[in-house]
């Protein structure tokens, strides 16, 4: 895969000297060469697991546990809030670039309460096009050539290309299963503190964490976050904390915000998502929250990239937050209610996989589950492509079994492929009928 190549061979040549060398050699040819060549920043970034797999799974006859979006409806009050917002004239025109006032105020209320600190709605918050847009604004604002960014494997796949596009160098460190046992839970995966500490050096600009983690579902404990925080403080690095699944944490576990640890607020950008919070991934609204001295740079990127996010959608999300703010901590609050509903689905999917003879990795949070497909003993030697086992397996499974999942090696670098290629990722924020249909396919695996 192209991005892995770049990872291993990360260009040490300065772009300036390379381009002027090219210019000297090819001046006469350049006039004839097409000018339609792309900028260097996108070299090697064209491959994308979603572009590859989502069109395949768009076939309605396929049971889709692949891409991470709900096939269950969002709460009706959220849809109603949008319809209501769109009926107000002013809501169909541009709003404040860095975030619609009612939304940033609601976010500042909710997260101020959660973090136990005052958050300035206008200076400490930026509303973006999804969590994705927040990650992009963060990288463009704060990462450049010469910077190293530590990324924990498995990682949401966009982190590496975004760091690369910003000119930075990704430095990977894998979560490892605890020695001596087969992982049955996301708690069985850990980060080795010594290994982590060796990844930090004077070029380290930031570390990206994702908790709850996609795809494993690990929820980092306070102690684990403290290890990371200590290193950030020691090496004076930033922390980009992707917390889009923050409300989806299951019984016995607690979501901890690394920004709330001592010394961390001033160096952390925390990312959230309306899509994941309210089951409206198609609304594409997210936010970054952090100290003004960092956020102002993200705001600069925003004002030079897309300027402002859609108004009625922001208004509706604001209404959704205000409603749930009143109910926070109570079972009626959507954040708790959704987690409870998903815990049931999580357990149902785990049982389905166990019945089919496999060992699922039960997640502490998020809406994905990893499962080792080795017990199915599927012979794929006839598939000619030179790809990791999980890629071949998923492609074969979509075609032959009409069940879609996502290969986990999409979320790791080249070196870690061999440790993860027996896993596939299943999404369980799906209707019960979808999960049951998946169960039937798996139960009848050996039947042709």
């Amino acid at each position, binding site marked *: 895969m192209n991005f892995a190549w770049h990872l291993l061979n990360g260009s040490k040549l300065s772009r300036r000297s390379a381009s002027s060398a090219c210019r000297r050699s090819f001046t006469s040819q350049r006039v004839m060469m097409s000018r339609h060549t792309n900028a260097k920043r996108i070299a090697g*970034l064209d491959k994308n697991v979603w572009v590859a797999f989502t069109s395949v799974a768009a076939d309605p006859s396929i049971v889709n546990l692949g891409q991470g979006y709900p*096939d269950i409806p969002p709460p009706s009050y959220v849809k109603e809030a949008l319809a209501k917002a769109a009926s107000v004239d002013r809501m169909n025109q541009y709003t404040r670039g860095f975030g619609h006032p009612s939304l940033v105020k609601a976010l500042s209320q909710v997260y101020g309460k959660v973090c136990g600190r005052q958050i300035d709605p206008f200076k400490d918050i930026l509303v973006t096009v999804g969590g994705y847009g927040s990650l992009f604004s963060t990288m463009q604002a704060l990462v450049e050539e010469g910077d190293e960014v530590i990324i924990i494997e498995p990682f949401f796949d966009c982190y590496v290309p975004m760091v690369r596009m910003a000119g930075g160098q990704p430095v990977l460190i894998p979560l490892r299963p605890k020695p001596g046992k087969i992982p049955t839970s996301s708690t069985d995966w850990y980060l080795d503190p010594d290994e982590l500490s060796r990844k930090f050096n004077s070029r380290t600009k930031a570390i990206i964490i994702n908790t709850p983690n996609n795809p494993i579902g690990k929820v980092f404990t306070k102690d684990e976050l403290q290890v990371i925080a200590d290193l950030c403080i020691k090496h004076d690095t930033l922390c980009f904390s992707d917390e889009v699944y923050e409300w989806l944490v299951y019984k016995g576990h607690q979501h901890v915000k690394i920004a709330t640890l001592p010394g961390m607020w001033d160096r952390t950008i925390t990312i959230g998502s309306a899509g994941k919070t309210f089951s409206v991934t198609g609304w594409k609204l997210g936010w970054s929250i952090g100290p003004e001295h960092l956020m102002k*740079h993200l705001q600069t990127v925003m004002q030079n990239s897309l300027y402002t996010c859609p108004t009625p959608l922001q208004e509706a999300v604001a209404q959704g937050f205000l409603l749930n703010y009143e109910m926070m901590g109570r079972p009626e609050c959507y954040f708790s209610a959704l987690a409870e509903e998903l815990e049931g689905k999580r357990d149902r999917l785990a049982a389905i996989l166990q019945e089919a003879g496999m060992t699922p990795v039960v997640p502490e949070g998020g809406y994905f589950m990893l499962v080792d497909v080795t017990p199915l003993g599927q012979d794929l030697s006839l598939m000619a492509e030179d790809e990791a086992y999980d890629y071949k397996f998923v492609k074969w499974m979509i075609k032959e079994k009409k069940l879609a999942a996502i290969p986990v090696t999409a979320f790791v670098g080249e070196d870690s492929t061999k440790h993860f290629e027996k896993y596939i990722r299943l999404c369980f924020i799906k209707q019960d009928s979808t999960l049951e249909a998946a169960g039937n396919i798996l139960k009848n695996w050996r039947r042709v």
Partner: protein
Amino acid sequence: MSRKVHSSRTEGVDKNVWVEFTQLAADYKAVNLGQGFPDFSPPEFIREAFCDALKGGPAMHQYTRAFGHPPLVKILAKFFGRIVGHEIDPLEDILVTVGAYQALFCAFQALIDEEDEVIIVEPFFDCYQPMVVMAGGKPVYIPLRPREGRAVLSSGDWVLSPEELASKVTPRTKAIVINTPNNPLGKVYKLEELQMIADLCIKHDLLCFSDEVYEWLTYDGAKHVKIASLPGMRERTITVGSAGKSFSATGWKVGWAIGSRDVIKHLKIIHQNSIYHCATAAQEAVARGFEREYEVFGAPDSYFQQLPAMLHNKRQKLATCLQSVGLNPIMPEGGYFMIADISSVKVDLNDESNKVESRDFRFVKWLIKEKGLATIPVSAFYSPEHGKEFDKYIRFCFVKEDSTLKAAEDILKKWSQRE
């Protein structure tokens, strides 16, 4: 943190005229003819389309195809294919973006590298310059100039000098950015003018980024011409459009880039590594809007006929009002805006502390604070090197309710009576 944290690409692109002036307009509760958005509602049929989309089942609230919702790219391909007279592939030749703004961003990021030069025609929508800079490129400016030797009453009287334009091309030139109808001037480039630019693009193998967000808004019989439809231009032009401007729904932030697949594919890579998807329901609504417009294209029913007809009158009203108070408007052939020459206005701007800013900036601030009327200084749309030549103009947006235009008129009348 003790070290420098921000990336170099954010340096020098942090100032923004909108942030400053919209804040000022809000603070003084000014009658706002500044920022370019309608203060009337989008047409009924498009609002209904949005409501229908919201009720359209769970898929409307979840991710759609990243490069553009299928119904939207299909109708855009059909709609614009009919206009340009050749097939547009909905999946390969179109990228849907968060407003035309993001389409421009993708174009610059995808195609402009360090040391690439980009020719920008002045006055320009202010984001082009920081976008070129953020992509590592170098902006090279060429101003439209009022024609010599006769009264300059219309945007059509502002022209490019072909010799001057040709002199701006160097071996490093990668692209030229044009905006027609133009913001802020309102110029609608004629076929001959676009041909001149096209000839240069073909001769030097340049790309052309054509910002056509105001494409339906032409007045007095002026015709919008798509440079991509000129021979030899299809393969090298990215045409940018906007649902916000087409349907008076700027807050929906749906736009698109249309071009040949070999160029659009690069924009897709930026898109998939930056925001990835655009909101589904808004795209569905825009698709339905275009489907409706496809059927009534050219007919009186068409919003793309009705909106320019409505704005034609508002444009006239504003021009008359400005003339009556001694501000000299340049009649725009297209778009949302009108610029007016403030040279004959004699006021004490009362801002001894601020001699640094250009005259139009100082005047606009004075107008907001003292008269409660918000406009935008035109030198904001010029490069530093040419700003001084053009700091006698301010920009008015006339895409406003009649009551707003009347309120502005009252302010101006009252002011001129006092002098």
